[in-house]
């Protein structure tokens, strides 16, 4: 028995959203009389961090601290329309809608502040800590709370904003497939190192190194959770999972997590990630979206690493020990390729 190490890589891109039927999302932003803002959405937080990333976008655009913004989602009576949380569209589409709504609200807030400070709104700036002051004269300042009170009770202004972001419908040419499916693309390259046991066909992950280009990492911690978790979903797709183990014969389908194989804590390996940021011209602060693409390069990188380790190509997923072992036997033993 020998364990063979091998490395494989893959590089990919991924479309952000998909505008087959037009792809809109809306947002509403409003302030209460203490200068605390609520973002009303109907978008869904699946754990990916929709509430948090839109909160940061709103705070940055308004020029207030993130603590002064709360995101409320999803309620069909209060939240305006959103297509949904899929197709890696949340950060880009909803983020842009929130930005537009926050910009409108900021406009009213600055007008209200200008009236209180008796200056031109164009001469004001926010400090991001809850104050608005005259550019170059920080002592001529008013808190967003005092602005909100004045707007509500004195000036009769509503510090609120509406936002929509729509990527219009793209027609698809039946003959050539000409279309505008997406407005921007994220990118990735991943290297997987594996160890293949030529007696059992078992594949163990040794390490992963990757680079993901995401436009802008709005919250690097949320990006990290997506990329780490997504890569493990990729490993799981490559080596473990399927509800139809004998596809296309639909027999012996698993019914629970005892029968449905996924990697456990003992199967994980180190994963070093680099994040690159090439801002998308139409992204909120340039952001694209890491949601879906993070799993994609892992599947082929693992398959290519197995070839590098023992010289067999498994083109049917998942790459089970049985398939690896049969392929090794068919070629008369492991044939390690040049070490990379």
């Amino acid at each position, binding site marked *: 028995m020998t364990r063979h190490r091998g490395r494989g890589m893959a590089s990919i891109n991924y479309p952000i959203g998909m505008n087959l039927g037009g792809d809109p999302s809306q947002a509403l932003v409003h302030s209460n009389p203490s200068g605390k803002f609520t973002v009303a959405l109907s978008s869904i937080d699946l754990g990916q961090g929709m509430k948090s990333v839109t909160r940061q976008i709103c705070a940055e655009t308004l020029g207030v601290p993130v603590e002064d913004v709360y995101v409320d989602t999803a*309620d069909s009576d209060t939240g305006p329309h959103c297509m949904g949380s899929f197709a890696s569209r949340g950060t880009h589409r909803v983020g842009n809608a929130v930005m537009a709504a926050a910009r409108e609200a900021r406009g009213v807030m600055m007008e209200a502040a200008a009236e209180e400070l008796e200056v031109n709104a164009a001469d004001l700036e926010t400090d991001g800590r809850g104050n608005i002051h005259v550019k170059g004269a920080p002592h001529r300042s008013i808190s967003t709370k005092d602005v909100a009170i004045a707007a509500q009770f004195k000036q009769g202004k509503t510090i609120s904003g509406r936002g929509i972001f729509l990527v219009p419908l793209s027609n698809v040419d039946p003959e050539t497939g000409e279309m505008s499916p997406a407005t921007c693309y994220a990118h990735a*390259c991943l290297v997987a190192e594996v160890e293949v046991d030529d007696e059992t066909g078992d594949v163990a992950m040794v390490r992963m190194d*990757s*680079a993901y280009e995401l436009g802008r990492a709005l919250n690097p911690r949320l990006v990290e959770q997506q990329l780490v978790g997504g890569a493990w979903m990729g490993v799981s797709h490559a080596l473990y*999972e399927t509800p139809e183990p004998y596809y296309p014969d639909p027999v012996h389908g698993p019914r629970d997590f005892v029968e449905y194989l996924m990697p456990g804590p003992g199967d994980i390996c180190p994963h070093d990630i680099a994040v690159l940021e090439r801002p998308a011209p139409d992204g909120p602060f340039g952001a694209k979206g890491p949601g879906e693409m993070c799993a994609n390069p892992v599947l*082929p990188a693992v398959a290519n690493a197995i070839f590098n380790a023992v010289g067999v190509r498994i083109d049917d997923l998942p790459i089970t020990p049985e398939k690896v072992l049969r392929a090794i036997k068919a070629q008369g033993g492991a044939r390690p390729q040049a070490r990379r």
Partner: protein
Amino acid sequence: MLELRKDIFADERDDNLKEIGKGTQRQDMLGHVTGTSNYFNDHKLQGMLHLKVVRSTQAHARIRRIDTTEAERSAGVRRIIRGTDVPVNLNTLLSLINFGKDDEPSLAVDKVRYKGEPILAIVADSEREAFEAIAKVKVDYEPLPAVFDVEDALKPGAPVVNETYPKNAFIYHDVYDHQRLRFGDADAALASADHVLEQRYQMSPIEHAPTETNGAIAAPDTNGRYVVYTSTQALFFSVDTCAKILDVPSNTFHFIGGTVGGGFGGKVDTLTEPLAILGAMLTGRPVRYVFGREEEMQYGPPRGAERIYIKDGVMRDGRIVARKIRAYFDSGAYTRLSSYAAVKCAAHLPGPYTIPNVYGDVYCVFTNRTPATAMRGFGVTAMDFAIECQMDKLANLVGMDPMEFRILNAYRDGDMKAHRREAKNTALIECVQVAAEKAKWPIRDEFRRASSRKDGGGSRAAIPPTPTESRARPAAPAQQRTSYDRAPVTATREPPREPPPPPTTPPPPPPRPSAPSHGATRFSSVFGTRRR
């Protein structure tokens, strides 16, 4: 470990921001880690009933008769819901964006098309009593031949899975049984390539495996409205789908969701909301319908399998000159969203590379299995697996390092993509360079110096002459047609039998790879041949 490479593309960014770019703790973190976040299933309402469905035991069968006599008398049963109780018992999800035809009932009426298809819903005082009543329902099936393989399903004479699409393929643009992509002359380029490599790839179905299974709780609200707590990934998608199926204005519903225990695409299909609301409408009580784990794994929609054939032409210097792809999406018995994924897949071809000649045919095929749906990377994950395994083989074939091979063929700013839009804001080359650096994978200087912002456009921006093909006419259905269509019929009625119509001309077979030209190296996993 995550490292931000701020040095790359720094000239395109303003990094002088206050909240953006910070690793601020999630707004909902405290609720999640203390177990106080509210999910749909945390709403235990007074007088709440429980709904469970009778699922087909057959992959493909006529329903002769459904006997509920004993089930009706079973303890705790409040209501048995049949297909005929559903106001609009035929829908397709993307009808909301006017894409595709209604093809799926909420409850099967006279035919089942996959094992596990819902036939009846039983509303009872408890889940246990609902299950006990389900065990007492007798369904008399007349089994029909079933088809499980995507390519078998497209053969003439294959059993018709879904009568809305009698050729077992989604119809694109009212003309074709596939989505086309045509860019340049792939056949001519393959004929003059130094090497041609043709391979077959198979992606398996995948379960989304969310911690929280699909579910909804619907309750009568004041003023004739219904409140619905839901796990949906797309709130208004679900609102509008329910309004259509239940034939009421959408503002009848107050949907509340937004905190979901994992989705990954498996909670877009609005599977539980319509029946939960209908149960509430028919009983006047709150009704909870939640998938069990086995239902989620076997009858909740998976990521569909895909079969992909790739034929590439590559020159000795490593340039790919042609890529021809035929892909089959296994949609299962109904369309759901696979039709859309096939278009997204066509747009994705040929991957992030500039290849002057690209040809793609992507099929959305119906088989007698659980309908597939969206999953993370929908339309792209399997294609990336196929393309990137193929890229590794091509690099091996021409004796190039796989990293350098990617950089050589990578798309760059200003290049024309195969779906006829200019590539902008690209960054594949930089990702390859950084990954190589991190993994200490040596690449040569000229590849380390390459840039997405250099050497693109120019002749690479051109749309190459593309041969026109004769436009196919919408062909008459060539397979046996059955009478199970949209007209609502009662479940117990004997279905009408029609003699099969005489066979007409079979449809043209899917395009076959053209015969290899002489002089080139040919490998083929498609036909198992290897010749020179």
